[in-house]
């Protein structure tokens, strides 16, 4: 037989099944991050910092050293690791409940100090693991288990745009929002991750890639509908773009 290998699992992931729900995009995002680590030769020097939420067990999948952090504190844990091991490749993997709510101080100040870490921020506009409660990123009118009548801005404010907020911070070197709802966007997302790790390894400062993601179970949709819902509802409010790129020379305050 003379078969040619056209696809094989990345060595950046441990060989095991994901525990994520069908239609959730964590699997795609994990794979993209793992591929980038392998392709850039960073896997052996990588430390993944897992957060609290559905991705609490991400350290079970990333095939590198890992450190599980308290809720919201992943950027602080990553800071500690990177400061004492400056040659390592440190990334946090955080959801929107973790990063955009309880962890706002840690994410803002990691960016503010210009920590040479990479943040993978997965935004699906809801708390997944705890059962679908409202997050700061939940869209107006969106029904969740703690906004049963739909999110009302007079009571709970309007959805928080983290990438836009961090773009105002001088220490943030690279910020981009991407989506993985179709192959074209998946390829674009991988390029963004590559860029973020380049920024880190070149010691240019803080980098974060925000992913528009889904939560079919807590949104009450099937996987296909949830992909469509993310595209039609989330992307208009959370536009896909580069918010900050200090490497291009003209976005440097």
């Amino acid at each position: 037989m003379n078969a040619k290998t056209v696809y094989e699992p990345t060595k950046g992931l441990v060989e095991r099944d994901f525990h994520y729900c069908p239609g959730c995009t964590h699997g795609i995002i994990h794979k993209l991050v793992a591929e980038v680590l392998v392709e850039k030769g960073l896997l052996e020097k990588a430390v993944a910092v897992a957060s609290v939420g559905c991705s609490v067990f991400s350290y079970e999948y990333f095939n590198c050293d890992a450190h599980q952090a308290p809720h919201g504190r992943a950027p602080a844990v990553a800071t500690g690791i990177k400061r004492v091991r400056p040659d390592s490749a440190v990334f946090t993997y955080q959801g929107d409940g973790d990063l955009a709510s309880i962890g706002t101080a840690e994410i803002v100040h990691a960016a503010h100090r210009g920590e040479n870490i990479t943040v993978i921020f997965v935004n699906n506009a809801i708390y997944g693991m705890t059962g679908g409660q409202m997050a700061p990123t939940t869209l107006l009118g969106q029904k969740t288990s703690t906004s049963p009548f739909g999110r009302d801005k007079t009571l709970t404010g309007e959805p928080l745009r983290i990438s836009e907020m961090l773009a105002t911070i001088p220490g943030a070197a690279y910020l981009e929002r991407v989506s993985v709802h179709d192959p074209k966007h998946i390829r674009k997302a991988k390029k963004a991750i590559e860029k973020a790790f380049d920024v880190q390894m070149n010691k240019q400062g803080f980098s974060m890639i925000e992913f528009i993601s889904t939560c079919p179970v807590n949104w009450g949709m099937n996987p296909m509908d949830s992909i469509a819902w993310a595209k039609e509802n989330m992307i208009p409010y959370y536009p896909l773009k580069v918010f900050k790129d200090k490497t291009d020379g003209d976005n440097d305050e």
Partner: protein
Amino acid sequence: MAKVLMKGNEAMALAAIEGGCDAFFGYPITPQNEIPEYLSRHMEERGRVFVQAESEVAAINMVYGAAGAGARVLTSSSSPGIALKQEGISYIAGSELPCVIINVMRGGPGLGGIQPSQADYRQITKGGGNGDYHLLAFAPENLQETVNIIKESFALADYYRNPVMIAVDGLLGQMMEPVDLEAAPKTEVPPEKAWAADGNSDRKGGRNVITSIHLDPLELEKHNRKLQKKYDEMVAKEQRYEMIETADADIVFVAYGSMARIARSAVKTLREEGIKVGMIRPITIWPFPEKAFDELPASVKSLLTLEMSLGQMHEDVRAANNGRFELDFYGRTGGVVPEPEEIIDHVKRMLEKEGSS
């Protein structure tokens, strides 16, 4: 090396440097600010890590990350700041990581005050954070003893893979006293930390993971029993205390830290007046030195616990005494530092009461 006159907080910071501290993460709070101030200059000069975090919560989580990556790490704070750090301390203990925490105690609860206090005793010895865990906790009484213990503490933290807390109060932090940093024990070279998640996963044995989560109750119970074994070893090996003139004492004080030092003056004065008093001075407050109580002769009439709090350690004294001797308590709190005369007066009242009964 000759003795050098140093402020307590600065001496503690220097002792940490000499103890091999690789990294410090902290947040300003009175009365311990001279620790980060000193380290901000001297760690950087030595090419070591100093970070002023955005909060105590962030600082302890930076400690968590750096300790997980295998570094010798220090943080310092004072009572309400230590309260904020409890989340991280529990994770660090749960993940079996070494670190050293200096707590320069002030009055509470809440924002309380900034004057010296020992009202963190329960916070330090009874958990503070969630879960079945303990800190190895020292409460030295003078600056020489403090620097000796700090230098040693990094090795102890590494040995037990557990946080070590150095509990002093604002008086020790703020006072000056001559110290000889070379009189302290030689710093051991850190052991190889084969468990560290430091971005070196092509090591023999594969990748390392630092975590405190165990969702299976049986697995978590097994983990807890493993931790408990370490705490049992600490109870067996690490109880430290000093017996001061207890052999013929009628009344035995129990006091630690600054309070013990003040009580020493009272012991001296009362002895000069022919009143037989002595003292048990706990040097570790966890493990609590129960062994000291076994050493007391049957001729003792009563124990007098002295604290700069309203009787937090007294609960442990009661347990260690186990009904053997009469118990009494005297304490000041809120940042009031008692004078030796108050203790002397209290002892005289005890004797009068005894005489009249």
